[in-house]
């Protein structure tokens, strides 16, 4: 997918600079989020902004878009200096931003979402017909077709992203900032998405593509800028860049990928037998799912988000019970589906959402470290909490799992995502779980933190734990899983040994295109024996 060098040089000869950042510096307390950053974006260019989480990418783009005001430095758009701190001015000058977390109103139609804020608040009439025609034209031109009348709540994630982009284009954006746009897409969707990006570029737009995925950056961009610890550390033409070079620049040190030793799987730990779970609106969230995980084994579940992963995770977490089918732990049927019972049965749970489910932001590290075992005698006697033991336990977790930055008595919300995940890992692994549910354990984490999480999961596997890894990141799945299954519309495929399946095949299964030749149950039986 790399473009030829001639292509690029031709382009650059004709290109004018549409955006210029000069000496942007932003300090939050003691943290220098952006340190004297100079950046130019040329017309019709795709500039990739690469960096780990916390490198300052989002801060920089928020300054550009007017959410933050830089401590020093200036921004020019199409030769005009842009007043800082005003998203409105940024939009006026043709800057559009597609946020990683969508900013759409679920209960409004696509058209309403796009029109929202473009018309004067007090005008009594609203020219919906003209807007609809304009929206449809934009969609046709850039290959972003979405039905304008559908409510956003009914759209898939990929479609919602299209609406976000249309929203920016509708406001005449000529510079589009895309913040981690592929994080929510399947490999196939990503392919289509890149086609759209190409159409936009040939249509005269300039793009800033924020990512931490090297392959994508190499595939789509013309030029790469790497940020690390708030500083611009490398600026390379994509044609001259290699993956290792970029990785090195991004991380600044060598990351050792955790080694995955071949282990013989032990006895069955978790067995799901044709489990069916109805979702709240009556649709089947899981239909007849069967799965078997043995000790010392990592089974991965791939799938586009919203296909039933949450239901599997919630079931094993003990948040609800199945309508039919059974779940067995160590050969015993589970009847009591409560979080506490799962904890009692040595199920460790790493939840999908660290902020809303995994941790209590306003409570301290220490309080959070014992939130699953606060009733055990060492922490609670006759209704009184033992602060000394809690403190000791927390300090032990903090040092053993390398939670950095804050003391055990600081509120958890101050921690970075990676450190939050380490704290959760520490809490889960301290209970010596025999089954670990890891739901998106690497989401939003930087390369180093992901490697750490994988290392810990592999260590638990070596100690004999059975691990269910749910992830949307296929590389993560292929890296540490022993077997992989794909979930699509609540149905779980057979499991495939990692050696015998490719990303492309997984991608097809994720969109439900490939039918497996054997029936599910037979394969699971065969796997189990």
């Amino acid at each position, binding site marked *: 997918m790399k473009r030829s060098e001639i292509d690029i040089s031709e382009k650059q000869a004709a290109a004018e600079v549409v955006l210029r950042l000069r000496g942007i510096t932003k300090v*939050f*307390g*003691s*943290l220098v989020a952006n340190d004297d950053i100079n950046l130019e974006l040329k017309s019709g260019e795709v500039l990739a902004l690469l960096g780990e989480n916390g490198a300052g990418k989002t801060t920089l783009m928020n300054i550009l878009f007017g959410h*933050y*005001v830089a401590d020093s430095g200036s921004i020019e758009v199409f030769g005009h200096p842009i007043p*800082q*701190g005003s998203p409105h001015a940024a939009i006026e000058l043709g800057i559009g931003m597609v946020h990683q977390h969508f900013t759409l109103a679920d209960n409004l139609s696509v058209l309403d979402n796009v029109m929202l804020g473009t018309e004067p608040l007090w005008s009594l009439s609203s020219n919906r017909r003209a807007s609809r025609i304009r929206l449809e034209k934009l969609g046709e031109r850039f290959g972003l077709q979405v039905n304008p009348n559908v409510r956003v709540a009914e759209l898939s994630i990929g479609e919602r992203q299209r609406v976000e982009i249309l929203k920016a284009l509708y406001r005449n954006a000529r510079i589009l900032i895309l913040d981690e746009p592929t994080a929510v897409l399947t490999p196939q969707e990503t392919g289509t998405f890149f086609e759209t990006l190409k159409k936009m570029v040939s249509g005269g737009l300039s793009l800033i593509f924020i990512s931490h995925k090297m392959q994508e950056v190499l595939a789509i961009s013309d030029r790469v800028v790497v940020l690390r610890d708030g500083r611009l550390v490398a600026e390379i033409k994509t044609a001259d860049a290699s993956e290792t070079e970029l990785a090195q620049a991004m991380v600044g040190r060598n990351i050792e990928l955790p080694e995955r030793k071949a282990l013989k799987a032990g006895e069955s730990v978790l067995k799901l037998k044709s489990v069916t779970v109805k979702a709240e609106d009556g649709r089947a969230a899981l239909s007849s799912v069967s799965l078997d995980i043995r000790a010392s084994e990592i089974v991965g579940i791939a799938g586009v988000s919203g296909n039933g992963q949450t239901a599997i995770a919630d079931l094993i*977490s*003990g*948040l609800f019970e199945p309508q039919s089918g059974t779940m067995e732990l160590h050969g015993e049927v589970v009847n009591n589906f*409560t*979080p*506490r019972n*799962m*904890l009692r049965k040595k199920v460790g*749970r790493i*939840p999908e959402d660290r902020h*809303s*489910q*995994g*941790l*209590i*932001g*306003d*409570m301290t590290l220490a*309080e959070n470290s014992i*939130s*699953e075992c*606060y*009733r055990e005698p060492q922490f*609670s006697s006759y*209704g*009184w*909490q033992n*602060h000394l033991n809690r403190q000791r336990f927390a300090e032990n977790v903090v040092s053993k799992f390398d939670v950095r930055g804050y003391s055990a008595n600081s509120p958890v919300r101050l921690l970075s995502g990676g450190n939050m995940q380490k704290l959760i890992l520490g809490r889960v692994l301290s209970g010596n779980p025999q089954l670990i549910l890891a739901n998106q354990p690497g989401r939003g984490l930087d390369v180093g933190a992901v490697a750490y999480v994988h290392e810990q999961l592999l260590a638990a596997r070596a100690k004999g734990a059975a691990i269910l890894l749910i992830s949307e990141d296929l590389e993560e799945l292929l890296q540490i899983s022993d077997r992989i299954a794909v979930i699509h519309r609540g149905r779980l495929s057979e499991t495939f040994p990692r050696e015998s399946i490719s990303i492309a095949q997984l991608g097809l299964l994720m969109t439900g295109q490939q039918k497996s030749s054997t029936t599910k149950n037979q394969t699971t039986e065969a796997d189990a024996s």
Partner: protein
Amino acid sequence: MRLEPRTKVPFVLVILAPIAAIVASFVLCAGLVAWSGASVLEAYWLLLKGALGSGFALSETFARATPLIFTGLAAAIAFKSRFWNIGAEGQLYAGALIITVLGTGMLDLHPGLMIPILVVSSAVAGALMLLGPVLLKINFGVDEVVTTLLLNFIVLLLVSLLLEGPLKDPMGLGWPQAEPVTEAAELPRLFRGLRLHSGLLLALLFSFIFWIVSIRTTLGYEMRAVGFNQKAARFAGMPVKRVMIITALISGGIAGIAGFSEVAGMKGNLTLDLSPGFGYTGIVVAMLAQLHPLGVIISASFVASIFVGADAMSRSAGVPSYIADVMVSVSLLCMLVSVLLVRFRIRWS
């Protein structure tokens, strides 16, 4: 102009914020005082003197603060667990009602036994008032703001009915009031000749106990966890529903004791004007205290001194005493702003 979160909050600021808020509210209300034709400084001086200037003033202020500590604490406990109990007024009357039934002759015991029994029964009455709303909320998702608020009117109408009927004091010259409680049921006065009664000590004791419960006990840990993040609490295996019920019962119970304290310590009998909105003012008290159990003591004293002081001010300077309501409301708004400014920094650019 924009707000940016402070990475580190200076401790001085945390202390100064409420003081600044109070000063600001006085400044903002000066216009109203001047409008009513009085000299601002003189009026405020009268207010201060009327609230804190003499033994009598102090006694009146703290006697007024006593029910506010109870109702403020009730609101603080419930709100901390995100249970929006707006019904402290009704719970207060429920507590007062049970005291009237038990304390006007039905029970005849030694004060050392009588008073604890009355405290417990008023707490039970207040707690029962919240049992329905909390069960409706956790089982059917019924909004507790609506149920607790509406229960206030039901209780008040019930009290009105009883005071006109079975509980009417035959010696009351036809007024809708109940018989006074017996001597054994009365809360002793703290100083001779002053209205300040030992209900204050009870209020302080409950604030302190609840503070300890909140920070030292397993129940307090669960209550805080459920309040901060119910989803995470449930995920971690905490008995969320049970914690909600217990929280509601404690909150209603403490509001119920306010009713006991007012009848047995202050008024002597149940009347329809037993509470001039203590239940609602308790919400303001709790918010001013930022839901801290010990902060409730300070904010209740502040609010009480405004009310008592404003009465004195209106008598001497001719400023309408309704200005107290305005001042309390303005101080709450100022408090909310100052809390915001403690957490965020303003950047002018």
